[in-house]
């Protein structure tokens, strides 16, 4: 097989995310490409064994992996509730719902490994079953291969000589499942043991029992060999030579900022306030004092961005991280940074909205907010990362563009990228592009003002501590020559246009748009940000072309040229058509249709393919 999709699911206290992450890392180390999708409930701990508490982790591994996969080939269900949620998908709450391939989280020919110790009458009742036979009640077709494993009993058996109490023993059930899955994919135990040791290096007492349970799980696989076959993945990874690790989008974003600060020779400052799903960026940076990173956990979202603006005013590489509701709160301050023409990086890890919306789900619904969600004519650069790994590149790029062009840059990622992991080729500092922060010419000493611009229209940057460049910066409109407060009508129009021209010239400093897939096709899929993997896979299946945008404002210079070469353009987004509306406003003469989903979930490749086929017929 070329690639395969595995989904672990169980109670949110079952260690599902840990198991999934360990398995994914192991697969990556063994040379597979990976793409992961953690899918957890918003509640920290829902009551044990209930449908609301089911946590999932899906990974696709193999070669030519672009997404975490539409549906699983292998399911590990740690309890009755997880079995139900995987089987019924979003219909798990419907009474009398049966397996339906449209909604199920696994295929008709999947392998479903289920803990038979967690199917007692009490367990079934908690998961709202009505009969004592869950498989029959759920209508699981015979083509699905159910593998019953007494996970709880076997885990206790493995630890019977450990002296551990019952509760502690049960915490290792996930390791038995991990060992079993490792056997299923023929993954060697020594590498897995090494990973476990690393994972528990701060709690060494946990290494031995967890290793024992995992190895027993692996060996148990041999007993199963009569009923299921091991799965061997062939095909070599598609990636270029280099040193790789697996990385989640939020961590990659944080590291992109760290790398940019070092390249620019500046201090990195993050002002932020906790918000799902962006908080891991702050967590990562708060732990990176070794890299000279300063983090202020502010009193609110507004203070997050305002402390960053203060740090930018004082000459730092300043950033703030948030999600949609936080970006709304920061709007006025982002306008201040536009007006004061200060470099500032704003990271919006988008989630389902509006308002509190779907905090743990993914959506691309903040695009128009990022572009236009401020008072006045208030342009800022807008970028979007498109894979968990390239969150690093676009965070780095956001810093470069902010520092070189004296502007706020909004970087859009989302829950899917932030929590998902992918293979990341680790770059060396020397190979990263140069960053040349805007400075101020020596001859302006003694007569500097904050309206003075270079030949690109970018204002010069002087900050406190620099003798002879004292000046007053403002959020009020300023005189285009003197830099002081001005309410003159012509001056205001001149300044509005100057700020727009400054953003427009950024197009000269970004790469052209590249067409992926079959460029010769007459059909072009258009996407932006995190949908790249799904759209790429769909374009491959359809034999059509794909234009995936990472640069939103300004657009790449060749955008018109690319779009006008195709007879049929379908703009695909996880919203009601925000990018399509934006493109239509720029290119009113180019006809476009759109495909949209707003379910808080990533696209499924199959649904995109079906849509495109249906309109072609």
């Amino acid at each position, binding site marked *: 097989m070329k690639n395969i999709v595995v989904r672990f699911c169980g109670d949110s206290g079952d260690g599902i995310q840990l198991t999934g992450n360990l398995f994914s890392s192991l697969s990556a*180390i063994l040379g597979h490409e990976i793409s992961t999708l953690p899918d957890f409930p918003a509640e920290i701990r829902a009551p044990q064994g209930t449908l609301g508490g089911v946590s999932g982790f899906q990974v696709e591994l193999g070669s030519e992996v672009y997404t975490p996969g539409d549906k699983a080939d292998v399911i590990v269900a740690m309890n009755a509730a997880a079995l139900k949620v995987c089987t019924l998908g979003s219909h798990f709450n419907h009474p009398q719902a049966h397996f339906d391939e449209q909604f199920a989280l696994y295929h008709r020919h999947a392998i479903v490994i289920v803990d038979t110790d967690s199917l007692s009458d009490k367990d079934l009742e908690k998961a709202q079953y009505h009969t004592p036979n869950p498989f029959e009640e759920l209508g699981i077709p015979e083509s699905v291969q159910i593998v019953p494993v007494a996970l709880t009993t076997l885990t206790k058996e493995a630890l019977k000589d450990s002296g551990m109490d019952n509760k502690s023993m049960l915490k290792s059930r996930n390791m038995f499942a991990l060992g079993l899955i490792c056997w299923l994919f023929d993954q060697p135990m020594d590498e897995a043991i090494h990973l476990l040791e690393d994972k528990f290096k701060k709690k060494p007492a946990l290494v031995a029992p967890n290793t024992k349970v995992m190895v027993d799980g692996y060996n148990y696989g041999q007993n199963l060999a009569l009923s299921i076959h091991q799965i061997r993945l062939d095909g070599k990874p598609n990636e270029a030579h280099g040193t790789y690790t697996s990385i989640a989008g939020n961590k990659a974003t944080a590291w992109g900022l760290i790398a940019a600060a070092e390249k620019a020779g500046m201090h990195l400052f993050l002002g932020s306030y906790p918000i799902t799903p962006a908080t891991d960026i702050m967590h990562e940076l708060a732990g990176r004092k070794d890299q000279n990173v300063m983090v202020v956990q502010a009193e609110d979202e507004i203070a997050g961005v305002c402390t960053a603006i203060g740090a930018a005013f004082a000459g730092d590489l300043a950033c703030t991280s948030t999600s949609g509701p936080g970006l709304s709160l920061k709007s006025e301050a982002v306008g201040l940074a536009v007006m004061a023409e200060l470099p500032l990086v704003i990271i919006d890890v988008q989630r389902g909205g509006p308002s509190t919306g779907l905090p743990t789900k993914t959506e691309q619904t903040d695009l128009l907010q990022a572009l236009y969600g401020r008072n006045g004519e208030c342009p800022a650069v807008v970028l979007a990362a498109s894979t968990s790994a390239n969150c690093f590149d676009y965070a780095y790029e956001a810093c470069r563009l902010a520092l070189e062009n004296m502007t706020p840059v909004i970087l859009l990622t989302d829950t899917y990228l932030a929590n998902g992991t992918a293979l990341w080729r680790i770059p060396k500092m020397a190979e990263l592009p140069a960053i040349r922060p805007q400075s101020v010419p020596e001859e302006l000493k003694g007569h500097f003002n904050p309206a003075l611009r270079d030949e690109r229209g970018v204002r010069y940057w002087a900050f406190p501590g620099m003798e002879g460049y004292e000046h007053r910066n403002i959020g009020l409109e300023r005189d285009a020559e003197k830099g002081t407060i001005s309410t003159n009508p012509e001056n205001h129009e001149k300044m509005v246009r100057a700020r727009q021209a400054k953003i427009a010239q950024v197009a000269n400093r970004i790469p052209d748009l590249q067409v992926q897939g079959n460029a010769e096709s007459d059909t072009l899929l258009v996407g932006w940000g995190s949908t790249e993997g799904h759209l790429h896979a769909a374009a491959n299946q359809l034999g059509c072309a794909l234009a995936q945008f990472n640069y939103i404002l300004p657009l790449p210079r060749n955008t018109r040229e690319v779009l006008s070469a195709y007879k049929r353009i379908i703009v695909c987004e996880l919203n009601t058509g925000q990018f399509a509306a934006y493109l239509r406003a720029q290119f009113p003469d180019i006809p476009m249709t759109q495909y949209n989903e707003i379910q808080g979930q990533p696209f499924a490749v199959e649904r995109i393919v079906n849509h495109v086929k249906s309109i072609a017929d």
Partner: protein
Amino acid sequence: MEASQFKSDQYVRFCPGCGDHAICMALQKAMAQIGIPTHQVAVISGIGCSSRMPHYLNTYGFNTIHGRGGAVATGVKTSHPELTVWQMSGDGDCLAIGGNHFIHEIRRNVDLNVCMFNNRIYGLTKGQYSPTSPKGFVSKSSPFGTVERPFVPGQLILGAGGTFFARTLDVDMPTTVDCLVAAQQHKGCSIVECLVNCVIFNNGTHAWIADREQRAEHSIILRHGEKMIFGKDNDKGLAVEIDPQTFVPKMIVVAADDPRVLTHDATQPDPTLHRLLALMGQQRFVSVDAEVTDELPVALGVIRNVEAETYDEAVNRQIAEVRDKAKAKNFDELTATLESWTI
């Protein structure tokens, strides 16, 4: 240094007769007296009449957005503790829209010098009541009188754990300069409440103490280590009395030679007495109908001045400590610590 070195080339646009003119001059004098070069000073403000102040000072300045000066100033000082950072704010800017940033800069003890101009009115938006307007105050937005209780700023500041609190009056230039200099010398978040007159919308709000005739009787200038004596003939003193039933302490006025007269200790860590001093004479600002039953003077000068570790210092110290012990100090060293493999 000379006060003129801190004057910018901008025409000062406060209304003729506004108390902000006096504070502006006092700031220029105080900054000259302190002697920190203009390029090492950053003055941050929000929005409001007083927030225009950075334009008139020849230092680095940033006139930001309404209420957020404190957060911006926190960013400047924390990222660059070597700078001297001032914040200019009013009773609306820092007690209403910016209230959250205000209490948190105090709680964190960020080393800022904050001038809070209190004229008990919104001037720039032309005459609405503020969080320090007395209950019942009639303004454009309260034509039948406000129904809200006001803040007493000193109480809020001490409640938030303030390490420095001074109060001054626009017409008392020497005390204002002294308070501003002391604020700069204090390491930590220093709040100076500047009582200023709004000649257009709230004229005479501080007349009770601002009138030259009455000032000596109605106010006391507190000086650390000196006895609390006031009155135009220096014949009155302040003492504390504890109610024998409730144990509630209160300030009382006694004769200047009474042995109970207190000596001011601004450095006392316990804020109980500082709070009593800060509350003196504030009763008449709580409600327009307040019946003022005591003759306590309004305390001016430095009321509280204690040392505690500053936020900016602590943040930078922690980074230095971690960095000192760290094995991976740059990006390449950091990535080398990752679990990785080569393709």
